[in-house]
C-alpha cells in the first residue's frame, strides 16, 4: 500500500472541490501518485491499493457527509437510498424485502456478511471488475491502459459471453443486475448540479471505453439511487449462481421483473449479471414474454432468444447453458 493523505469531506460541495480523479483515471492517466479520489465503504478501493494497481495521493472520505445513508420507501414514489447505504442495510430493510424481492435476494447473496456491513451501494456501483488479470499487478491489461487483453487469450472461465471483443471482464456488481431490472436510476451530483440517469445508461461497455465501467466523471458523486414504485402486478425474482453457495462472486446471475395481468405478461425486464462488462438487458427475450401467458414453452423460447448473439470464449462456453437454465428458473419463480 502506498502512502496517501486522507480527509473526511464535510459536504458534497467540498468533496467535489477536493476530488480530481475517478478511480479509473487514477489507474490510467493520473498514475503519478497525486490523484485525489473519493472513498465510500472502501472495500474495493483498499483492495486495489493493496494490490498496488491503484496509488492515490489522497482519499476523500464521504462517510461524514450527512444524509447520504438514508433509505426511504413510499408506495407512490418507490424506493430511494443514498450512496452510503450499505448492502446490509438493503438486506435488512423490510420494505426492500417485501416490495423489491429481487433486490433483497441480490443483497443477501453479495460478498460476505462482514463485507455487506461495510460496502456501500455507491461504492458497489462504482467498483472495478474482478477480472484476475485486471487485479494482478503483473498484467498491464487494456483496462489499465495496456494493449493486451490477457483474458481473451488466457484463463477466461469466469469471463463474459457477450461484448467480448475488447475486454471480456464481467461487471462485478450483482446488485446492479437487480437494480437495472427494476429500472433503477442514479442521481449524480457535480459542481453544476445534478443529473439523473437510468442505470442502464450509467454503465459503459468496454467497447465504448475499456478503461472505465460507467459515465461518472471526476467531478461527480453518486448522491441517490432510485427505484420506481412497484405495482400490484409486479412480480420479480433474482437468482445468483456462484461456484460456492457461501461467499462467492457470481458465475451467472439473473434478475427478472414482470408486470403480470393474471397469467399474462404485460411487460418484462430481464437482466444478466456476470455475462458482460455491464449488467446486460436481454430485450429480445423480454419481447418474447410480452403479451403472452407464461408457460414452459414461452420460457424456453425466451431463454433461447436471450442467449442469441453470445460469443463465449475458450473456457466459458458452459455459461451459455447456465444462463439459459438460470433464466428459465428465474422467470418461472417470478411468474409463480
Amino acid at each position, binding site marked *: *500500500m502506498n*502512502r496517501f493523505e486522507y480527509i473526511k469531506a464535510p459536504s458534497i460541495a467540498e468533496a467535489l472541490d477536493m476530488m480530481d480523479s475517478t478511480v479509473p483515471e487514477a489507474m490510467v492517466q493520473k498514475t503519478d501518485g497525486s490523484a485525489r479520489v473519493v472513498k465510500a465503504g472502501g472495500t474495493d478501493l483498499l483492495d486495489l491499493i493493496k494490490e498496488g494497481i491503484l496509488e492515490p495521493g489522497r482519499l476523500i472520505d464521504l462517510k461524514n457527509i450527512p444524509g447520504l445513508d438514508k433509505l426511504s420507501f413510499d408506495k407512490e414514489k418507490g424506493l430511494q437510498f443514498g450512496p452510503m447505504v450499505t448492502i446490509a442495510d438493503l438486506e435488512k430493510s423490510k420494505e426492500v424485502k417485501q416490495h423489491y424481492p429481487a433486490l433483497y435476494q441480490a443483497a443477501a447473496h453479495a460478498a460476505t456478511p462482514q463485507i455487506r456491513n461495510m460496502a456501500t451501494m455507491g461504492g458497489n456501483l462504482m467498483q472495478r471488475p*474482478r477480472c*484476475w*488479470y485486471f487485479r*494482478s499487478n*503483473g*498484467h498491464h491489461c487494456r483496462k489499465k491502459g495496456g494493449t493486451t487483453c*490477457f483474458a481473451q*487469450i*488466457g*484463463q477466461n*472461465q*469466469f469471463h463474459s459471453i457477450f461484448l467480448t471483443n475488447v475486454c471480456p471482464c464481467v461487471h462485478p456488481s450483482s446488485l446492479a443486475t437487480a437494480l437495472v431490472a427494476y429500472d433503477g436510476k442514479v442521481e449524480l451530483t457535480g459542481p453544476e448540479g445534478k443529473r439523473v440517469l437510468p442505470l442502464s445508461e450509467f454503465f459503459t461497455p468496454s467497447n465504448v471505453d475499456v478503461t472505465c465501467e460507467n459515465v461518472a466523471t471526476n467531478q461527480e458523486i453518486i448522491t441517490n439511487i432510485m427505484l420506481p414504485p412497484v405495482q400490484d402486478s409486479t412480480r420479480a425474482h433474482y437468482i445468483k*449462481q456462484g*461456484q*460456492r*453457495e*457461501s*461467499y*462467492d*462472486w457470481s*458465475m451467472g446471475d439473473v434478475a427478472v421483473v414482470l408486470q403480470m395481468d393474471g397469467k399474462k405478461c404485460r411487460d418484462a425486464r430481464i437482466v444478466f449479471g456476470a455475462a458482460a462488462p455491464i449488467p446486460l438487458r436481454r430485450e429480445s427475450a423480454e419481447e418474447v414474454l410480452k403479451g403472452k401467458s407464461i408457460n414452459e414453452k414461452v420460457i424456453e423460447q425466451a431463454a433461447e432468444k436471450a442467449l442469441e448473439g453470445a460469443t463465449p470464449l475458450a*473456457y466459458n*462456453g*458452459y455459461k*451459455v*447453458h*447456465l444462463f439459459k*437454465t*438460470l433464466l428459465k428458473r428465474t422467470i418461472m419463480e417470478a411468474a409463480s
Partner: protein
Amino acid sequence: MANPNKKKIVLPVAPDTEAHGPVKHLYSKKVKLPYGVPGHNLTEMEREVSIDEPPALPINEKLNVLGKRTKRVDAIYKVTGAAKYTADIQLPGMLFGKFLRSPHPHAIIKSLDVSAARRYPGVRAVHVLLMEPGGSVERDSGHDAPAETYNMDQLPRLRYVGQPIAAVAAESQYIANEAVKLIKVEYETKPFVLELDKARKKGAPIVFEEVIEDGGNEGDVGVKAADEQKGNLRGPTTGSFLGGPRGDVEKGFAEADFVLEKEYRTQVQTHCCLETHGVVADWQPDLLTVYASTQNTAGVRDDLAELFGLPKSKVRVITEYMGGGFGSKFGAGHFGVMATMLSKKAGRPVKLMLDREEEHLSAGNRPNSHQMLKMGFRNDGKITAIDLTSYGTAGVGLGAGVGRVAQDMYECPNFRTAQYDVFTHAGPGAAFRAPGNVQGVFALEQMIDEAAERLGMDPVKYRDLIDKHEVRKIQRMKGAEAFGWKYKKPGSDPGPIKRGFGMAQGHWTRFINLNSSATVRINKDGSVAIMSSVQDIGTGTKTILAQVVAEELGLMAEDITVKIGDTLYPDGPGSGGSVTAGSITPAVRNAAYKAKMELLGQVAGAWDVELSDLDMKNGEVFSKTDSSKKMSFGEATKKMRTNQVMATASRPDDYGGFEIGNGIGYGRLGSVQFAEVLVDTETGFIKVERVVAAHSCGRPLNPLQVESQINGGVIMGIGYALYEDRILDLNTGYQVNANLEQYKLPYSKEIPQIETVLIEHYGAFSSTDASGIGEPANIPTAGAIANAVYNAIGVRLYELPLTPQKVLAALGVS
C-alpha cells in the same frame, strides 16, 4: 505405457534401519495387552517388552481420562485471542522482511543492483541469493558488502513466478515492501512450459538442461533431462518401501474375464494454511532463537544449525501455536534461512512472514496427476492384475507420484507401477496430507466401483469380497449401517436434480518416528509439566499428552501443564504422516511412569512401605493393602526429597517389532467414507449433502478431537473434489487465483452433515497403542464423492475438480 522394468529394486534404506522383527531386550517381561476391536474380536495379545515399560492399559472403557471426550487444554487461549502464533510475535527492535521474487516463469537475471534498496531510509539489511557452488553460507556478507551489483554468473536461474531472488529487512513492513521494489533487475526471459502434457512432449522447453550423471543409484530415479524423448521426465519409480513389482502383469490380464482401462486426472491443490509460512529470527552471539510456524521444530533447528555451522545447542526453535501446515511446513524454508541471514546482518530480530500470494506461489502444493490405470477382473470378482502408470508435476520439484493404494489395498498377485515426475516452470510441490494416496484413491476407487457395476454387485459387498483388511471390513459394516446404505441404480432419479450415493476407502501406512522423546516433571507443589519439542499443529497434541500423563498419575488433563514446541526440551517428532500420536504418546507415558515410580519410591520411604504396594488414582496416592495409608497427590509430592522429580523417555520400538525398517509399523490404517450428493443436471452444480466417515486410529485417545480431525479431512476432501484448483495463466506463468477469493475453498454452506463412526482398534503396539488420524481422514473423500456423482447422473467423471463445467460437458449439454 508402463515401463516393464523388471530389474530388482534396491531401495535406499540406510543399513541401520533394515532391522525388523521383535527387539531382544536384556531385561524383559511379558505383558498381556488388549488386541482387536471391542464388540467384534477383542482378545489379548502377550508381548515381550522391556522391563522399563509401564503396565498394559486396559481398553478405553476401563480408563478415567484416556478415551474420554476431553476439552482441548489450550482452547481457552484460542477463543480469547491470547494464543501467540509466530505471526503475532513482536520483539523489541524487530525488523520486517520482504522478498523480491521472480516475475517470470523462466528467465536469466542479467544484472541485479541493490544499492537503491540499501540506501532507502529504514532499510537495515539486504541479502541476495547467490549461486556459488562450494561457496560459503553467507553469500553476501555484512552491511558493507562491496558488491551492490551482481552479474548473471552469480545469480540463480529463475524457473517459476515467485522464486525468491533477494530480500530486505527494514524498520516497518511498509518500508520493506517499498525497498524491495527499488532493487533493479534486468531479466532475459526464456521459453517456458507449464502443462503436464506439453512438458513431456518432444521439443518442449527444458526445465533442467544439463544431464545429471547418475551418481550412484539404481537407474530408475535418474534425471534424464537431455534425452529429448524424456526431456523434463524423471522416473519411472517402480517400487517403494512396500516393495517393487510382483507377479506377471501380462499373465494376469490374460487370465482376466474383463479388463478395465481408464485415464484419470487430478489438479494441483495448494495448502492454504491460514497462518502463512514464516519465522521471526533473532540472531544473538550466544543463541539463535527462531519462532517458526512449523510442523517440525527439531527439523528447523537441525537445518539452521547445519547451514550456519552452529551447534544444535545454540539454536532454539519455538512453535507455541501454529496456524495450519498440512504437510507444507517442514524445514527452515527459504523464509527461515533468509530471516536468519538478515537478522545476523542487521543484528536485530527479523520477522519474515509470506503474504497470501507468496504462500500460493512458493510454499508448496499437492502435485497434479495423470493416471493410466488398467485392471483385470475375473467374473467371480477376483482382481488378476493391476498396472498403473502415472505422470504428475511438482513444478520445479519432485514427488508427484500417486502413492501406494493400488499396490496395497486389494489382494492381487500381479502388480506393477511406473510413476513419473514431470518438471514444469511452476512452484515446487510439498508433502500434502497423504501425499499420493489422495490422488491414487480417486482413480482406484472409481475403477473398483465400475468393476462392481460390471459384476452386478453392490459396491460395499464387492469390497467385502476383495478387501482382506479386517478393520476396514468392520468400518464398512458400521459405516453402511450409519449411512443407511442401499444400492441405487445410477442416474435413476427423475427430474433435473438427482441424488446419488457413493463410497470409497483408503489406507495409510502406520509410521512411527523413534526420535520422539519427552520429559515429565513433577514439582513439590503438586504441579506436573510435560516438555518436548513436539508441536501441536492444531490436531490436539497438547491435550492427548496431558491425558496420557493424567491417566498415569491419577489426575485430570487440566491438572497437567504442557510445554511443547520448544527445542530446548527433548526432541519430539515432526508432525506429518499421521505419526505424532503414535510416536510421542508412548514416550510421554513412559516418562510419566518413570517419574511416578520415582515419586512413589520416595513416598514409600517416608511411609515405610514397599514401592509395589503403592499406586495413584483419582488424585490420591494410596497403599493397595492398607486403606488407612492414603493421601492426596499434592500431599504426596510434599514428601519429595527434592523440589522436583523428572524423567525423560524415548519412543521404544513397537511391541512386536516393525514390519519394515525402523518405523513402518504392522497394520495399515484403514478408512471408509460414504457420501450423498445432489447434482443439478441443468446447471452442473454438485452439493455434498451428507458424509459418513468410518475410521480407526488404534486406541482413540480423545474422541472429541478425533472427530474434529475427521471432519477436517472430509471437508478438505470436499474442497479437493469440487472447488480447489491452482490456475496458471499459460501465457505469463502467473497463478491467476493466488488469493483466497478465486482459489475456492469450502466455506460454511458447503459443509455437509458429517457423521463419524469411530472404531476402537487395539493392536498391542505400544504403551498407549495410539495411532494418527490426520491423513486417513482425507484419503477417501474425493473418491467417494466421485462415485456418488456417478450414481446420481449415470455418467462418470474422470477429472478433478468436479466443476459445473465438467458435469455439463459430461452430460453433453454444453
